[in-house]
C-alpha cells in the first residue's frame, strides 16, 4: 500500500515536473525577443511590399478612380510623404499597375518602430486610351514607420539613383 501510494505520488511529481517544464519552455518561446524581432521583421516586410504596390499603382481612367487611388496612397503613407501625396490632384491620365518583384529589409529598429526597405518593382504603365502597356522596372528604397500594431506605413519613398545620374523620384507619381 505504501509502495502503491509512493508510486502514485512519484508519478504525480514527474507529471507536474513535465508540465511545468513545458509551460516554462512555452513561456520562454512566447516572450523570446529574437523571435519577436523576427515576427516584426516579417510583418514590416509584408506590409512594406503591400504599401509600395499601392503607392506605385494608380487607375486614372476616370477622375473618380484617380481620386480613390490617391486616397489609397494617403492610407499607405504617413508623415511627410502623406502630406505631399495629399496635395496631388486627381486627374485623368496614364494608369499604372505595380508588382513588387523582390523586397528586403536593410534595417529594422523594433523599439523606434522604423525600418528601411529596398524593393524592385515592375510597373506596367498604360497611357490614357491606349490598350497596350509599357513595362518599367524600378528599384526603390523606402523608410517605413510603425503606426500601430502590425501596421507599417511608408514615410519616405525614393528611387535608388544610379551614380552620376542623381534623380529623386516620388512613389506613385505616374
Amino acid at each position, binding site marked *: *500500500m*505504501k509502495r*502503491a501510494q509512493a508510486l*502514485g505520488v512519484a*508519478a*504525480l511529481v514527474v*507529471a*507536474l515536473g*513535465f*508540465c*511545468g*517544464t*513545458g*509551460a516554462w*519552455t*512555452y513561456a*520562454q*518561446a*512566447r516572450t*523570446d525577443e*529574437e*523571435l519577436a*524581432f*523576427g*515576427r516584426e*521583421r*516579417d510583418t514590416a516586410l509584408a506590409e512594406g511590399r503591400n504599401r509600395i504596390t499601392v503607392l506605385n499603382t494608380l487607375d486614372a481612367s476616370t477622375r473618380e478612380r484617380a481620386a480613390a487611388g490617391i486616397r489609397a496612397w494617403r492610407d499607405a503613407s504617413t508623415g511627410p510623404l502623406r502630406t505631399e501625396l495629399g496635395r496631388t490632384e486627381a486627374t485623368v491620365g496614364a494608369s499604372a499597375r505595380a508588382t513588387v*518583384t*523582390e*523586397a*528586403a*529589409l*536593410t*534595417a*529594422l529598429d523594433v523599439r523606434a518602430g522604423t525600418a528601411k*526597405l*529596398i*524593393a*524592385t518593382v515592375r510597373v506596367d504603365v498604360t497611357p490614357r486610351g491606349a490598350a497596350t502597356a509599357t513595362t518599367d*522596372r524600378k*528599384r526603390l*528604397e523606402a523608410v517605413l514607420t510603425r503606426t500601430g500594431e502590425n501596421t507599417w506605413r511608408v514615410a519616405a519613398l525614393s528611387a*535608388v539613383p*544610379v*551614380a*552620376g*545620374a542623381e534623380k529623386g523620384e516620388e512613389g506613385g507619381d505616374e
Partner: protein
Amino acid sequence: MTRLLRKTTGADAGTDEEAPDAVGDDRQPEAPQATEKDDKAAANKDEAADGSGEDGDGTGSADRDGTGPAVSTRRFTPAWRKSALAVVLIVLLLGGGWFFHTAHQLRSTPSARNQALTDTGSTTRVSGDVAEGLARVFSYTPAETDAAERSARTVLSGRAARQYSDLLAQVRANLVEQRITLSTQAVRTGVIELDGDSARLLVFLDQTSRRDKAAASTAAAQLTVTAKYQGDRWLIVDIKAR
C-alpha cells in the same frame, strides 16, 4: 504490510472486547478507522497480486459486514482516488506535451529560422561577402579578364560559376576588341533570408562601363543572389536578374 497486520489485530481486539463499556466506547471509533485502512490495503493488495489478496479479502468482507452502509461509500474512495490521479496525470502529461509542442512550433516557423537582421553579425557578414564578390567578378579591364575569371573561382560556385563562365566566353572577344572596362559597385544590399549556411539577398548594382577613352556610362542592375557558406566565406551559387 506490518502496519496492516498490526491494525488488523487491533481491530480484532476491539471487536473481542466489545463487552467492557468504557473501553469499548473508546475503541469503537477506532474500529471503523482500522477497517477503512484494511479495506484500502485489501484493494491495493488485490491489484498488486491476485493470488495473495485472499487473506485481505477475507478480513475486508468480514469488517464490511460488521459496519454496514457507512463503509460502502468508503469502498468507493480508493477507486475514485485512483481514477482522479489517472485523470490528473493524463491532463498534466497532455498539457506538458502541448506546451512543448507549441514552443517547438514557435521556434521552428520559417520566420523564426530566418536569421536575417536578427543575427546582425551573420547578416553583415553575408552582405559584405556577397557585395564584395559581385563587385570583384563584374569589374574587369580588357587586359585582366583572366584575373577576373580567376577571382570568380573564389567567389562563385555551382550554377553561378557556370553562368559566369558562359557570359565571359561570349563577351571576351568584344571586351578585348573594343577595350571595354567595367567596374561594378553594390549600392544596396538586403538580406531576404538567412538560414544557417544558406542565404538569399537582393542587391542593387551600379555598373560603369567605359569603351576605350569614350565617356563612361552607368547602368543599374538588380540581382537576387543565393549564397552558401562554404569553408570560411559566403560563395555566390546563383544569380537572377530582377
